[in-house]
């Protein structure tokens, strides 16, 4: 397993043991080095002291060439088991006496070397001059000692060091086992909590807080985050269930509405066909008696004029006028009914062209009236050409009619800004109307002028509004008495 995949506990333990081990090892190594060096120094000093003592004692033996004495002197070295060889050279550098008496040849240099103590070939050797208390040199003492003292002491230190190291590592290991908990436990607890959250989607769990250190702060932050997520989740759930409930309600409502719409549509269809039959019957049957009333009144006027006085003739004229008026009313009502029933056939309609045609028609019918028509070119719309013609015909005819008492009548048709948008506009400078009654303009049989002032049935604008509504548009009017009227409409 790669180091980074180790559990955090093992990592912490390994780290602590490794660091303490390394520290101990370095310390021990430094200590051992120092000990080695100082032991060697001490051993050399001790050998040189011994050498000087022996050299001082051996002056007599050399001076008198008493080799037995010299051998005895050297034999005293037996007390130090580490001395492996000792040699006394005479003044000429010849071996005078050795220790032990029969020493191995390779331990005895054939001739004395330079004075002084040094380490050579795993041994501590020294050449000590033997001198009289003046300055005459009598010979040289050679001493060779093994390094057993150094090695023994050094080995003991090594054993002690290893023991200390082992105990220290064990202690470090045990301590780390105890101490790592303070770091690892909160992290493990956090990890455990995070796992629970991600596997069970349970946002209600909380990581236990084990201290006030950074890990404690991390735990707090983590728990707060969980709390917020839990709140948001709850809120989302509330929204979702609320939404579901509302969708259900709305669906139910829509179903009910659909049902009632279906019922209404069926009723409407029935009512429509009834209306159809009614309108058809009105169209045929209601006008026939009017024709008779008008026709026979005219016959009376033509054939019996002489037998009637002025009042009688006037009465007959009134009968005729009334029946004709009623004929117009019936026609207008039928037109309104037809507009309601007619199917809309949408196409591009040249409104400017329609308006010009209607203006020409009006001028042709009453050539003695001079009305200035200002019709903007290029006005187009999508809609039913026949119905839109009815709209323009009514509006322009109204303008024509209500400017009759105006000395300089003017009728305008163009596109204009109105109510924050754009709309078609028909404006005249005629009799106008009081804005108080603006809402009554478009009602059936609603008239703002007496028939004596301006004739009319009060159905035209109702028809216009119905056509505009059926095109999905809007119509409204502005005006003031004797200041003209302006009609705006959108399609």
């Amino acid at each position, binding site marked *: 397993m790669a180091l980074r995949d180790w559990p955090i506990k093992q990592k912490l333990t390994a780290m602590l043991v490794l660091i303490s081990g390394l520290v101990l090892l370095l310390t021990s190594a430094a200590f051992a080095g120092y000990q080695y060096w100082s032991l060697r120094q001490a051993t050399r000093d001790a050998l040189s002291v011994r050498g000087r003592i022996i050299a001082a004692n051996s002056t007599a033996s050399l001076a008198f060439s008493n080799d037995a004495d010299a051998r005895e002197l050297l034999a005293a070295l037996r007390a130090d088991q580490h001395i492996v060889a000792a040699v006394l050279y005479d003044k000429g550098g010849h071996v005078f006496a050795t220790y032990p008496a029969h020493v191995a040849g390779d331990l005895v240099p054939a001739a004395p070397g330079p004075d002084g103590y040094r380490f050579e070939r795993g041994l501590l050797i020294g050449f000590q001059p033997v001198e009289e208390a003046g300055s005459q040199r009598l010979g040289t003492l050679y001493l060779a000692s093994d390094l057993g003292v150094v090695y023994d002491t050094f080995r003991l230190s090594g054993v002690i060091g290893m023991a200390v190291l082992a105990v220290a590592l064990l202690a470090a290991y045990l301590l780390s086992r105890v101490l790592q908990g303070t770091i690892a436990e909160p992290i493990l607890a956090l990890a455990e909590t995070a796992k629970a959250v991600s596997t069970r989607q349970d946002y209600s769990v909380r990581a236990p807080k084990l201290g006030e250190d950074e890990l404690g702060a991390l735990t707090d932050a983590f728990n707060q985050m969980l709390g917020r997520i839990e709140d948001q989740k709850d809120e989302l759930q509330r929204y979702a269930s609320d939404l579901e409930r509302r969708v259900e309600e709305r669906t139910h409502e829509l179903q009910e509405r659909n049902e009632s719409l279906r019922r209404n549509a069926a009723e409407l269809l029935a009512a429509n066909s009834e209306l159809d039959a009614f*309108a*058809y019957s009105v*169209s*045929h*049957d209601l*006008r*026939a008696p*009017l*024709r*008779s009333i*008008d*026709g*026979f*009144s*005219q*016959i009376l006027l033509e054939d019996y004029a002489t037998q009637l006085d002025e009042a009688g003739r006037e009465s007959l004229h009134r009968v*005729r006028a009334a*029946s*004709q008026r*009623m*004929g117009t009313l019936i026609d207008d009502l039928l037109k309104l009914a*037809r507009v309601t029933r007619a199917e809309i056939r949408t196409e591009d309609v040249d409104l400017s062209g329609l308006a010009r045609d209607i203006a020409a028609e009006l001028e042709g019918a009453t050539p003695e009236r001079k009305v200035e028509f200002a019709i903007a070119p290029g006005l187009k719309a999508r809609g039913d050409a026949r119905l839109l013609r009815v709209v323009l015909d009514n509006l322009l005819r109204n303008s024509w009619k209500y400017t009759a008492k105006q000395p300089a009548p003017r009728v305008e048709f163009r596109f204009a800004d109105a109510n924050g948008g754009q709309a078609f506009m028909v404006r005249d400078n005629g009799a106008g109307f009081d804005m108080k009654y603006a809402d009554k303009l478009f009602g059936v049989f609603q008239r703002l002028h007496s028939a004596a002032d301006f004739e009319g049935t009060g159905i035209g604008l109702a028809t216009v509004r119905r056509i505009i509504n059926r095109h999905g548009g809007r119509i409204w009017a502005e005006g003031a008495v004797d200041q003209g009227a302006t009609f705006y409409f959108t399609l």
Partner: protein
Amino acid sequence: MNPGKILLVEDNPDDVTLTLRALKSHNITNDVIVAPDGAEALDILFGADGKSPTEQELPAVVLLDLKLPKVNGMEVLQRIRADDRTRLLPVVILTSSDEERDVIEGYSLGANSYVRKPVDFVEFTQAAKQLGLYWLLMNRAPPVPRRP
């Protein structure tokens, strides 16, 4: 029935009187045969017993109302157009209504004209005058079909 006669198919006696007066007031003095319902109109044209009328008996023009007892105007028109002898006979629908579907159906069935009777008698008279002038004087009648 002599050529130049008018067959007026009209159930309303007032309208008959008014139509006759309107025609007369403009010196249209042709004979006018009045059929008060569709069935009688068909009898006059095709013979009550179903026997074929002679071509001399066909009127110059038929003024046909639509709302008629027994057999309505559209059916009369259909029968006139279905018969070889009367296929080309000028038929003018003269009625109260100008409902679009009537106008369309009338022309589809082969009416030569569709005239709506105005309420204003003066206008009515004017219309009758023009009708008479056109169909009796201006118009060249279709050739009489030969007998097989």
